[in-house]
């Protein structure tokens, strides 16, 4: 039914604009969680429960908690911008216009003659039953077996993100008491 699609897409757009425009950072983090939740509902409407599950767990769950943890360390509100950003606006406008011009050539949504439905997908769905010896979930079969190298790259990306956070933020237990005592001595 098209009305649910229109309502959920409108909510997505309104939430995205609110996240960009609001200045109170606590509310912005909450709206990011709401955006992830509505995005997960939208993916469920498109018949993709695996992706919806991952989006709900990561976006509406962990990401909100970690961003709230970050907010405890930074300012509570964004500073108001002092100048009108003309050049970024023109860059965004140009890029958006180029992308919209590019979508004019794309096939219609859900067209069975489209190349994305022709080449890998039917063969994956047909091949997965005899290949996988009875593994019912085609999504896991594609993710972990047919395209397992990409998933290795994703895991490496998560690993790199964790290493990056560790390098920037970790405090050794030995140095923290020394810094604290030196602050007390100086002040």
């Amino acid at each position, binding site marked *: 039914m098209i009305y649910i699609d229109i309502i959920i897409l409108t909510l997505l757009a309104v939430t995205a604009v609110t996240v960009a425009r609001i200045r109170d950072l606590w509310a912005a983090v909450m709206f990011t969680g709401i955006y992830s939740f509505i995005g997960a509902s939208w993916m469920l409407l498109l018949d993709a*429960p*695996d992706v*919806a*599950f*991952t989006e709900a*767990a*990561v976006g509406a*769950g*962990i990401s909100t*908690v*970690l961003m709230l*943890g*970050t907010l*405890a*360390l930074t300012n509570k509100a964004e500073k108001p911008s002092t100048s009108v950003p003309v050049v970024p606006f023109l860059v965004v406008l140009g890029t958006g216009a180029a992308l919209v011009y590019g979508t004019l050539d794309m096939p219609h949504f859900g067209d069975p003659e489209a190349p994305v439905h022709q080449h890998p997908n039917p063969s994956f769905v047909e091949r997965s039953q005899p*290949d*996988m*010896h009875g*593994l*019912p*979930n085609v*999504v*896991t*079969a594609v*993710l*972990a*077996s047919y395209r*397992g*190298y990409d*998933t*290795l790259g*994703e*895991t*490496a990306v*998560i*690993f790199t*993100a*964790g*290493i990056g*956070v*560790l390098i920037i*933020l*970790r*405090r050794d237990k030995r140095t*923290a008491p020394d810094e*604290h005592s030196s602050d007390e001595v100086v002040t």
Partner: protein
Amino acid sequence: MNSFPIIRIVSKLLIPYILLFALYVQFHGDFGPGGGFQAGVILASALILYGLVFGLPAAQSVAPPWLIEKLIALGVLVYAGTGVATMALGSNFLDYDALEHHFLTDVTWGSQTLHVLPSGQHLGIFLVEVGVGITVTSVMLMIFYCFAGRNQSSE
């Protein structure tokens, strides 16, 4: 949160349930929605809930930071190690069919043969998802430790 008994009791009631659900999602990825990423996030959120309710030192005694740092690398090692194992067994990188009969797959009891371990694809997907789950859990938990620990040591 030491003076809020309701939240402590509710967390003690629910955290085993959440951990069990994380394991269910991890190993049920073959049959329904699930897999390593979702299970890792749910497991990390259970441990973060424990850290929020009972204090950061209690969470760090359950999951110590030095162990979590090692586990971050262990997950990627398990994943890539599966690929190297398939290469060592003569096939391409991450070609799970090479794992087919190199382990104890058939146990013969008298006249019956039991398939103890699953086929090569099942085994390969299982190992790979375990690797992904370990890495995702450890990274989320480590990020939480970094943020929460920094706040405590800076005030």
